């Protein structure tokens, strides 16, 4: 009985957010398509807008899926259903992360297809590209976790502002400490150094940490409303 309710709620979120997901995938794919034109400017425009679609969705999805439940006052309706606060938090995490991961994987697949089959970029771009693609994923988890735990639009927006301004800073710090990242991205062969694996490992760990912390903090709450 319990799992049924939670699944219904996850499905409800998917139904409500489906257009956001679809449009993000379409925008990302369109950005990738620009790369087909070839030449430096299209490559820059395409990769930048590809990244921007992910960043945009990383902000929009938590806003629509989590903040709006409180803002649009649909939360009492959900809370009248047979769910607890902890279950609600789990449902939101599952639906939010699930949907974002879905589009992230779809876009990753599209990007890999473009690089491997359509040769829009050298293979050397793959490791670094993967590292950079994880940024919006981490950012998304941070914004989602904050929005869910802090229960306010203000904090959610603050998280968005902090996250969005941090992307370049983090990239800059990474590159200054590990120059090999930018040195190999023009190579025709993907270069998987230990440094790359370490960074990917840390990124994965950060995602898990943020999600676990969110679940924990959510379960400690005493009131929903």
């Amino acid at each position, binding site marked *: *009985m*319990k799992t*049924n*309710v939670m699944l*219904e709620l996850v499905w*409800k979120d998917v*139904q*409500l957010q489906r257009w956001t997901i679809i449009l993000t995938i379409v925008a990302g794919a369109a950005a990738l398509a620009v790369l087909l034109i070839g030449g430096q400017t299209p490559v820059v425009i395409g990769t930048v807008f590809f990244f921007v679609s992910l960043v945009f969705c990383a902000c929009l999805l938590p806003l629509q899926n989590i903040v709006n439940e409180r803002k*649009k*006052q*649909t939360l*009492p*309706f959900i*809370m*009248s*259903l*047979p*769910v*607890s606060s902890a*279950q609600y938090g789990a449902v939101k995490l599952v639906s939010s992360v699930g949907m974002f991961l879905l589009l992230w994987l779809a876009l990753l697949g599209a990007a890999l297809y473009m690089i491997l089959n359509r040769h829009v970029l050298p293979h050397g771009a793959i490791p670094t590209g993967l590292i950079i693609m994880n940024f919006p994923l981490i950012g998304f988890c941070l914004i989602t976790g904050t929005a869910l735990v802090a229960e306010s639009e203000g904090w959610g927006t603050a998280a968005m502002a902090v996250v969005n301004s941090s992307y370049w800073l983090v990239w800059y710090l990474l590159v200054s400490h590990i120059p090999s990242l930018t040195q190999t991205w023009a190579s025709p062969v993907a270069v998987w150094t230990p440094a790359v694996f370490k960074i990917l490992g840390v990124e994965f760990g950060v995602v898990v940490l943020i999600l676990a912390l969110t679940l924990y903090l959510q379960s400690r709450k*005493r*009131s*929903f*409303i």
Partner: protein
Amino acid sequence: MTDYAIELEGVCKSYPFFELQNIALQLQRGTIMGLIGPNGAGKSTTIRILMGLVHQDRGEVRVLGHRMPQEQIAAKWDIGFASEDMRLYDVMTMGWHIHFMKSMYQSWDDAYAQLLLKRFGLNAEQKIKGLSHGQRVKATLLLVFARRPKLLVLDEPTTGLDPVARHEILRELTAVMVEDGRSVLFSSHNTQDVEQISDQITFIDRGRILDSMDKEAYLDRWRRLRLEVPDGVVLPPLPGIIGVRQSGRLAVATANAFMPHLPSEYENSGVRVHAVENMTLEEIFVANVERSREEVNA
């Protein structure tokens, strides 16, 4: 199986500027309780506590035999809840919401839902954002009614509704009572609604329960006596009278513990009783709140 659908005992909750103190409340199965009180009295907080949405600082809460908030999931299967601040999903249709509830609750009565759609003048294909305030409230209540839950907990179900819509909702609420064993708790400002359909009335003001009892017995305790006080006669203070207003030779006494011999006691002391009138719940409400606030301030 307990006799009570809702039991609150010694429930306390503190907020920075408001405190719910020692709330004790019992709703008998198969009855309707009307919870009335001024704005900010604590009606919504009490309701949220019994729904398990807010954890009480102290005190026992049992709803349909389940301890709240610990067993709220089990309890909520049989509770239909609607509050004034609750909204549905604007971008979705009425039909979507019906389907959503149907897939979640086995007790969903689709035939009744369709009947209510017609009765309330709602359209399944219409998006929620296109509904007027009254239609939206009715839509929310439809989703509660069609589940046929054992207990309905409604926070201000008729507030802001036009007379026709109010009448429709009251009709459905009294219809719930035909089935023995189903209970309703609703809060309202509208003393007329509460007076008409409640079996029990609970008065709350400034975080405290003033009265909680059987409606008929309660209404029977209150009277307004119109008196004429001739010159040289002094109005005697009688037990059961909580307030007297005098202007020259005319006086109005309010009784909150009326006894049939009260008028004759006045007559015996030389006061003439012109009329003994029943009071409406609204008049009782105001008199009660004023009196309790005086007592607290004294």
